[in-house]
């Protein structure tokens, strides 16, 4: 869908089949519930998303990939902006690597195995396999086009030769759960190289990027804490986020809700990423996401009214609208939660 600045504040529709295809795992939970209720997916076009899209349209892909960091207070719509960009890029035909929430990789992991590839790294087969499945679902068409550049050995008996389609790598990872994380690493490497040569652009969209540089809640068997570098998935993702490849763009979001050991009032990149992360991501384009502007608020309110989501009689009046605006403070998440029981 082509959007210009005139469309700011309006909502646009995504057909349901595309939703399932493009975002198997990307949308926030509440938004998915809303899709189910209203039987359609409506996304609001907001200024930060438009900014990113203009930059993407105008950027030169021969240069190294530009990094965009979306940040803002809690509940202002960063993840939704990211999804908007992802949808746009997939419509344009880009290759999309979408990590829904990097925080899932650094906490609450049940199984940790020692990596077969490198001795001191740790694997996470569960999350890796889940992610591979989703990746396959979203990027079906491209798996056959891309060929591997290097030979990968998955263990004593299996190996993938050069020049084979990527589909085999993915399926290898899905079949052999133990080597799933290595499969992910191989995949990312291939995609990076691909982006440099081939006609396909690559978009790397990571939600909750601050998880990659913080601490983890996991610990090894001898109860010593694990730093994120020792996890294969995180390590590979960090390599991807470095600027050494060209032909695409990287869009990341910082999220406080899933982040570990960080105060709840922190929302700037410096605070959430920490020194390491900030240095690693250093030349980036920051994009703040504010609360709703009055126009956006009115359009959201109008949408709820149109969908008969607000049942209370007083909600239809001007006073009710002023009350909602006051109580939610024009914060999208608050407005959503407020409008729920009404």
């Amino acid at each position, binding site marked *: 869908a082509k959007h210009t600045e005139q469309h700011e504040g309006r909502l646009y529709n995504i057909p349901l089949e595309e939703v399932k295809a493009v975002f198997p795992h990307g949308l926030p939970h509440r938004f998915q519930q809303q899709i189910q209720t209203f039987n359609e997916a409506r996304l609001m076009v907001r200024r930060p998303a438009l900014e990113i899209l203009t930059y993407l349209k105008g950027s030169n892909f021969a240069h190294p990939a530009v990094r965009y960091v979306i940040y803002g207070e809690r509940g202002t719509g960063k993840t939704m902006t990211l999804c908007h960009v992802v949808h746009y890029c997939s419509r344009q035909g880009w290759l999309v690597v979408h990590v829904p929430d990097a925080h899932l990789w650094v906490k609450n992991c049940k199984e940790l195995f020692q990596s077969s590839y490198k001795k001191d790294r740790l694997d996470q087969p569960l999350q890796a396999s889940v992610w591979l499945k989703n990746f396959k679902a979203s990027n079906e068409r491209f798996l056959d086009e891309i060929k591997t550049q290097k030979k990968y050995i998955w263990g004593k008996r299996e190996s993938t030769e050069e020049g084979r389609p990527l589909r085999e790598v993915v399926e290898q990872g899905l079949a052999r759960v133990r080597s799933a994380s290595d499969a992910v690493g191989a995949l990312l490497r291939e995609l990076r190289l691909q982006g440099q040569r081939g006609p396909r652009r690559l978009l790397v969209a990571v939600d909750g990027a601050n998880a990659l540089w913080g601490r983890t809640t996991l610990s090894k068997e001898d109860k010593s804490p694990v730093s994120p570098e020792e996890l294969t998935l995180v390590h590979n993702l960090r390599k991807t986020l470095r600027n050494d490849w060209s032909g695409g763009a990287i869009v990341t979001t910082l999220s406080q809700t899933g982040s570990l050991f960080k105060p709840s009032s922190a929302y700037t990149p410096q605070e959430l990423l920490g020194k390491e992360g900030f240095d690693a991501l250093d030349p980036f384009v920051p994009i703040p996401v504010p609360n709703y502007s009055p126009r956006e608020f009115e359009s959201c309110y109008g949408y709820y009214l149109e969908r008969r989501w607000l049942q209370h009689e007083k909600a239809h009046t001007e*006073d009710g609208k002023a*009350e909602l*605006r006051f*109580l939610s403070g024009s914060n999208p998440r608050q407005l959503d939660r407020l409008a729920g029981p009404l």
Partner: protein
Amino acid sequence: TLRLICTTTAVQKRNVAASGPEKYTEAFIKKQIEEFNLGKRHLANMMGEDPETFTQEDIDRAIAYLFPSGLFDKRARPLMKHPTEVFPEQRKIQWGEDGRPFHFLFYTGKQSYYSLMHETYEKFLNVQKHQDQLTAQDLPLQKEKRNLAGSRWLTKIELEEMLLEKVSDNDYSRFIQLLQKLATLPCADIEEKYIQKFSKEVPVQLQKVVIEPLQHDERGVAFSTGEGKRKTARATAVVYDNGTGKITVNGIDILHYFPVLQDREQLLFPFQFLGRIGKHDMVCTVSGGGRSAQAGAIRLASAKALRSFVTEKEVEFMRQAGLLTVDPRVKERKKPGQEGPRRKFTWKKR
């Protein structure tokens, strides 16, 4: 000359019986007064002030300074007052050495009460006579209405104190009726002084709440301040006109300071009641108390500040809605022998 009927011993015995209620003899009270004056001069010397011009207030202050006490009841604290205020007035012995009472109404039992009634009725007849004289001379009757609304009659207890004897309810009501009859007569101003002895000024009942006018900022924006409190939380609010409806608490936006919806609803209530949700900006400072108490305190402060922006009728509406009253509920004290303010210990049968 008095005739000594009885012997001295009989007189002395009756005197001793009467001195039962009289605990303080006159000599005793005189001695107390002398001691008090001496003590006053000593105290003035101690405090370094002039003994001649040392008033009762100065005495109170000096005593409070020299003997600080943390007792809650003011009457239990150290006290230095003139003996006439400390010792209650006594009935002196009503009869002489020969046993004859001084007052002619002694044997009625309530001598001072009946003498008072007689006096009042005498004044009453006086006034009627004066009235008849005036009507006979065809002069206009002077009517200067006493301010009945600003004064009240003495209570029964005060009358008892004045007469130094018990007054029953019936007697009291009859006396008050007589006084009222006297006061309502047109020429009662002759006996004005007499009536004033039995009436008291009632202090001003309603303190009219002054609504402050709007003050103006440097930029010309009108604003007003208000203070509020609730359960140990104190808040001051400054409400500006021509705003967008933004509210800042201690420098932080309300969304961040009050993450709970209930607190924000409390803040919203005054504005919603007046229908001015998006019109005013507010900057408040709050300290003490908990989350809910701070919200209540800010609500009261903002309601008080909004009074200046609003008509009197709406102020009355706000007062009836309970937006302007301080919430008196505070944490109740724990009592000994109980686990909490109301909860008793678990009762075990054995």
